[in-house]
Structures are given as C-alpha cells and as structure tokens.
C-alpha cells in the first residue's frame, strides 16, 4: 500500500522499545536528577545546609555532562556502560547514556523550580525545627510540585528526542526508525509516520503534565 521498508511489527516493537528506554532512563534519571537538583539548591551559599564543597563539586559536574554533545557522551560512556549492563550494544546499553544525559538536565530544572519557593515558607519550616530533610520533603517539594511536574514534562520530551540517537549503539525505538529509515534511507512514509507517533506521544505527555500542574495549582 505504501512505499515503505518497515513493517507494522517493527513499528509496534519500536514503540515498545521507546517506552522501555525512555521509561527506564526517566525513572532513574528523575531520581538522581531530583537528588542532585535538591542537593545543589540546599548546599549553595545561603541554602538551608550550606555546604560549599558539595555545591562546588556538583555544579561543575552537572555542567560538564551537559556540555558534552549526546553522541560523544554515548561513545565516551561505552566502557562504563559495559561495566554496568555487560554490553555496549542494545536497548539496555542505550539507557545508561540516556540516564547520564537526562540526570543533569533534570537537576537543573529541579534547581530552577525549587529556587522559586519563597523564603517565607522555608522560614516557617525552620521555625518549626524541621530537619533539612523535612524542610525539603514537607515544604520545598510540595510547594514546587506544579513547577516540578512541568519541568519533568520538559525533560521527558527532551529525553524522547535524545533517545532517537540510541540507534548509535544498536538500540531501537521510534526515533531510531525515523533516523534509520526516514533519514538514512529516504523512506518518507517511515519518517512521516514515526514523527506522527512521536507527536502523539509527546502531546499526551505534555497535556498530562499540564493537567497535573493545573490541578496542583488549582486554577
């Protein structure tokens, strides 16, 4: 029917692979990103537990990773990837650089969101004798939640974009089909349909994020 090289099967499989890779790396990246983002906010000079050393180490590390083009990151990480997942090829191997890529990105967005929480809230927390952990958990995070959701949405979408490069280490996914078939093999149908799928996925993620954030902000 269409002049294309890809089969429906490949498509379905690719969608599954995308969800797997993005899901896994998002999950782990969010955990680490949140931790680093929080650390960088609380340890900064004037933060709730000023700890210049942590801040001064973490901040450049985040910057360093963010500086490296993703493709270079993939290659540079190969030995590390291999030591973690046993191979540098395939979906699992792609997850490692994706995590390393998205973690500092999330950390930065988390940082930005958390900095928006007013000083009055933190004072209230401190006046109650809250431990730093409690300040973060019971005060800062809930107050920044709507903004964090939007940040996470942004990060997820960037991650989907990055995952298209996962083909470099032999991983699959929808983005990879777009590149391998659409870009490198001039298969317009493959290109078009994968992009449509991506748009749908992204649209769903974005509106879920927006809806959640709006619910939290209650307006």
């Amino acid at each position, binding site marked *: 029917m269409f002049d294309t*090289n890809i089969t429906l099967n490949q498509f379905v499989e690719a969608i599954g692979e995308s969800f797997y890779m993005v899901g896994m790396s998002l999950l782990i990246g969010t955990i680490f990103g949140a931790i680093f983002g929080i650390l960088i906010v609380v340890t900064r000079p004037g933060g709730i537990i000023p700890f210049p050393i942590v801040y001064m180490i973490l901040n450049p590390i985040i910057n360093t990773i963010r500086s490296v083009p993703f*493709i270079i990151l993939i*290659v540079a990480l*190969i030995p590390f990837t*291999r030591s973690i997942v*046993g*191979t*540098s*090829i*395939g979906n699992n191997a792609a997850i490692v650089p994706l995590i390393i890529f998205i973690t500092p990105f999330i950390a930065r967005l988390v940082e930005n969101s958390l900095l928006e929480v007013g000083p009055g809230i933190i004072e209230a927390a401190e006046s109650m004798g809250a431990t730093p952990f409690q300040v973060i958990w019971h005060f800062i995070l809930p107050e920044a939640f709507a903004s964090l959701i939007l940040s996470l949405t942004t990060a997820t979408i960037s991650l989907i974009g990055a995952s298209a*490069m996962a*083909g*470099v*280490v*032999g991983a699959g996914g929808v983005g*990879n089909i777009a*590149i*391998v078939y659409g*870009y*490198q*093999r*001039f*298969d317009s149908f493959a290109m078009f349909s994968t992009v449509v799928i991506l748009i749908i996925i992204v649209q769903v993620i974005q509106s879920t994020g927006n809806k959640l954030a709006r619910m939290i902000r209650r307006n």
Partner: protein
Amino acid sequence: GDQGDTDGDETSFVAGFGVGTYEEQFREGILPILEEQGFDVDIRILSQNMQVNPAMDEGSIDSSVFQSTAYMEAINDELDMDMVRLTFAPGAPQSLHSVRHDSLDAVQDGSTVALPNDPVNQERAVRILEDLGWVTVAEDAGTTDFSLSSVSPAAYDIDFQVLDPAQILVSLEDVDFGIINGNYIADAGMRIADGLAIENTPEEHRIIVTVREEDVDTEWAQALKAAYESEEFEEYITNQSKYDGFILPYAWEER
C-alpha cells in the same frame, strides 16, 4: 544469544551492520540460506558505522559488513584488534552526481564539492577526485584519520563541503557536485550508473565481510563465507535492479 561470544556453540552468531544496503542484502539474500542450514542469526544495526568495530571489539557482534580492507587494517592498528576479511560482499561504489551541471566540464576554480564527513568515505571520495585530476592527495594521508588537510588542489581549486553522508544527496541543489555513497543511491531510488563519475574501487576499498581472526574457522563463519559466495546469493543480487552498478565479489567472477 545476546552476547556475541557463543563459546562452543557454533550455530549461532550476531551479525552487525551499519544502516542500509548491506543489512538489507543480508536479510534478504544471506539469512534465508543460513537459516535453512539451521543457523541462528541475530542481526544488529548500529545507526552509526563508527560504532560497528568497537562493538565487535567488545564481542557484542561477531561479523560485520560495512568496511573495506584498508579501513579494517587501520582500525586493527588503532584499536589493537585482530579482525580479518572473511570474503567480499557486493559493494556499492561511490559516484559523483550533480543537479546543477550536466557534465564534469562545468568544473572550475571555486566549484563546490560535497564530501562525506567520516574518514573512510571521505578518503574514497577524494580518491575519485584524484582520479579525475582535480586534486592531489599527500603520500602520507591517513586512513582511519583521513582528513582534508592531506588534500591539495591540482587542476582546480575545489571548495569542499563536508556533510553527513546521508545529507549530500539531499543537498545536491546547493553544491556543484556531490560524492554519494552507493547505498544511499540505491535507497533513494536513483541509479549509480547515472553518476558523472563512478568510483573505480581498488581492492583495498571494496566492501568485505569481517570477523575476528579466532572465529574464521568456526562453523558459522565458514557457512557465512559460503553464503556470500553462493550462486543463490548471486542470483538474488543480479535480479534486483537496485543493485545495478554494484561491485561484485571476486568469488563470483572466478566462477
């Protein structure tokens, strides 16, 4: 198995490819032969050719079809590997195309020529221009690290545009000439034969099937070699018009 090293088990292996024609040839022409013989083949596609050899180095793939002998040898040095040529595969030659000009005569000082950005294909492309007498290539030009710094003007002072290989075809309108890898020509529904110049591929630049030296005598390697050299495969290739202009393996000529 997932892992390339299938110690002891000689009936399964992982075949690695870059994107495009060689993987398609394998899937359609070789795989049926091997499967009939009871081999279990896992196909791995890496969207960047650059990653294929490192993957073989770590053992994630057992065979590859994408490189030339010259490149393989250079990589053996570079990465301290021991890959060997198992046999030749039908290779797509590069060809020089233009949408702005009808013939090579239009070339002049300052003409723009688009070249692939990766070292292997870039060297091959420059060799075409060298054959045409447009440029000269330094004696000590590298292989894995070939770069335009070893190219100097001969008949013409060419303005090089270095692009992603897949990009050249799309950008032909914006340059005077572009040298395109054969596999893209096939994929784009064009014909290599329409090129204004076609690569006269010397042996060391012909596409080969690569395996690790230790694997050469395995059951699967020998079957793979046999499949590439088989009449069945030759028939498949010669019956498809998209392979017109491909450089065919020596084994078939000798038949």
